């Protein structure tokens, strides 16, 4: 019986790890539904981008208030996880605060730092709940934010608040137990949780131990449960932001990814020697993107990294003038479709062949046609997500596979083909402007 808590702990950790591993494997497969990406060049620049943008939160600080609050939660997440290490060792070894005797006074200092961060996280989460639900900051609303995304956002904040309360409750009761039970190591006062002590004063030692144990278990099981929840949630950015920024587009934003398949065909049409033309032409799957597997895996990873903050949509000229396009929705739809396909494959279902597709069932032509390719969404994203790349790939599909671009665009294509200008002017008139040079008075 003595080892029961340790066995229970081990089983809980094992179950959680199993589900977490399964989920991560699934997400990995979903991401790699996408086509290969060549983004492994310039590694030092990529590490630097990751350090600045993800680790250093560089782009968050364009908006100071949310950046500050977010930074507190972020620091809390990074630092408080150190405490989880002690939780795990204690849980497995049956010890209590195993580091306390070794670290002495420094242990109290550490716990006080953790407690400070716990309070900071609490404060920030409450502030974020206020921003979402009372101040109703505009970018948190929108067509795509109804139901689950809004609930998801609030749930994350509430869960974090509850988890932080569990830590503080645990520490407050711990202080009262110290000296009354040998299992509990002696420490100095924990500053923040001492404010909760009056709530528990007067309770019997056994009640206190029950509360302390309950809080301990609640916190560690809560963290494990939350970790699994996160993989289904927009909150996945806490992990994905790092690889996502590593695989950032390092080219000038104005440059659109080339299509080498087309280059070969065009070279043949122009009677030029295509590179590697001795080899048989590769099987061309599809021009542009109709479904998630036509995108690059970096596009899909972008979608899994999106935390739906709406900075992109709030900067989008099409969205702010009432058009249906919302860059955030493009990312959410891409993730939803990847999840749908993945879930179907998991069950041995039809996967991509389910008769649905990203373009058509999730994203409409009206949305992608409204994009001005201004890159405001890309610039606004705190973790370098690129909704524009997905939009342009879909336009390629519509234009080249379906020949279903808007009529005026088809007219423009025709003008370029026949008169080498998007407008219908005679190519022989192209140099007429020079005749006006000396007509004008100065």
């Amino acid at each position, binding site marked *: 019986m003595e080892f029961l808590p340790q066995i229970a702990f081990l089983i809980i950790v094992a179950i959680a790890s199993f589900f977490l591993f399964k989920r991560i494997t699934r997400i990995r497969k979903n991401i790699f539904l996408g086509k290969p990406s060549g983004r492994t060049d310039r590694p030092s620049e990529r590490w630097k981008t990751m350090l600045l943008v993800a680790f250093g939160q560089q782009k968050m600080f364009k908006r100071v208030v949310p950046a500050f609050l977010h930074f507190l939660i972020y620091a809390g997440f990074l630092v408080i996880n150190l405490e989880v290490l002690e939780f795990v060792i204690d849980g497995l070894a049956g010890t209590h605060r195993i580091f306390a005797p070794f670290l002495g006074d420094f242990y109290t200092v550490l716990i006080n730092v953790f407690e400070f961060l716990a309070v900071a996280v609490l404060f920030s989460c409450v502030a974020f709940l206020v921003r979402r639900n009372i101040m109703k900051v505009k970018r948190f609303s929108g067509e795509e934010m109804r139901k689950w995304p809004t609930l998801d956002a609030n749930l994350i904040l509430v869960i974090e608040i509850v988890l932080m309360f569990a830590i503080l409750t645990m520490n407050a009761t711990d202080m009262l137990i110290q000296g009354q039970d040998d299992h509990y190591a002696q420490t100095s006062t924990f500053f923040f949780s001492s404010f909760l002590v009056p709530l528990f004063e007067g309770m019997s030692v056994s009640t206190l131990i029950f509360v302390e144990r309950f809080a301990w278990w609640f916190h560690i099981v809560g963290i494990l449960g939350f970790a699994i929840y996160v993989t289904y949630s927009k909150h996945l950015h806490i992990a994905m932001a790092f690889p996502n920024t590593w695989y950032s587009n390092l080219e000038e934003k*104005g440059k659109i990814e080339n299509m080498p398949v087309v280059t070969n065909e065009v070279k043949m049409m122009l009677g030029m020697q295509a590179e590697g033309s001795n080899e048989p032409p590769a099987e061309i799957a599809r021009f*542009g993107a109709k479904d998630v597997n036509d995108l690059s895996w970096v596009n899909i990873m972008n979608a899994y990294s999106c935390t739906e903050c709406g900075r992109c949509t709030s900067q989008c000229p099409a969205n702010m*003038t009432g058009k249906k396009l919302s860059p955030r929705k493009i990312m959410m739809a891409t993730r939803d479709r990847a999840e749908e396909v993945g879930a179907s494959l998991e069950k041995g279902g039809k996967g991509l062949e389910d008769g649905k597709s990203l373009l058509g069932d999730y994203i409409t032509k009206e949305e992608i046609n409204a994009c001005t390719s201004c890159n405001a969404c890309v610039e606004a994203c705190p973790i370098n997500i690129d909704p524009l790349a997905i939009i342009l790939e879909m336009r390629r599909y519509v234009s080249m596979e379906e020949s279903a671009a808007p009529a005026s665009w088809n007219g423009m*294509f025709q003008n370029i083909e026949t008169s080498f200008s998007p407008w219908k002017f005679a190519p022989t008139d192209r140099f007429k402007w020079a005749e006006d040079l000396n007509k004008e008075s100065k």
Partner: protein
Amino acid sequence: MSDQQLTVPTMAEMTAKGESPEVLFWVGCAGSFDDRYKKVTLAFIKILNKVGISYAVLGEEEACTGDPARRAGNEFLFQMQAMSNIQVLDGYNVKKIVTACPHCFNTLKNEYPELGGNYEVIHHSTFLQQLINEGKVGLKGGGEFKGKKITYHDSCYLGRANNIYDAPREVLEALDAELVEMKRCRTKGLCCGAGGAQMFKDAEAGDKEVNIERTEEALETGANIIAAGCPFCMTMMRDGVKSKNKEDSVEVMDLAELIAKNEGL
């Protein structure tokens, strides 16, 4: 200026004479055909003539870079345009290109290299900035625009697309004018609404046109001149100013026009 007749040398003529110019001026379709933007082309030509730089244009041999086709999804058409343009440019052994269109600039600079076209490409705002730094134009002080309120509208294809924010502003500073910024400027600059091939179709249903939103912002600054560096922005902002009935008090001008006027050209 004197009554001296200005002529615009073409690459064909120069090559026939066995000369090769220092820089090719890529005029672009708007600069060649759009009545308003032809004035910008002329202004820039006058500046080129004044500073005595050796330049040429392609004339009738120039063709659309393919930018709108690529952005509208027609990769075939884009690459056809690009390949044949590269053949022409390489045929004349062109090394350096200047253009007054950010869309041509972006395509030539960023997208042609992968198709085999490698040139030093600069936008005319950078080119003008260099001329100013070299003391070849501007910096007279007390010019036509001294003390006038000018606001600069960032072109997306110059700004976010290529990180050029300072060159156009430095050009404006040389006018000794009062440069006033719009609420959304530089990295946060609002698009005029014409990029991504939107210039060539009607906007999707919504509750406002993007150019109206942007024009309102420009007018809020109280500037009399909206400076632009892009033919599409020029069209969109002028339409916006017109629809606000402000064309008598607010003018949309290109950077080259401002410099040419300041120089008395």
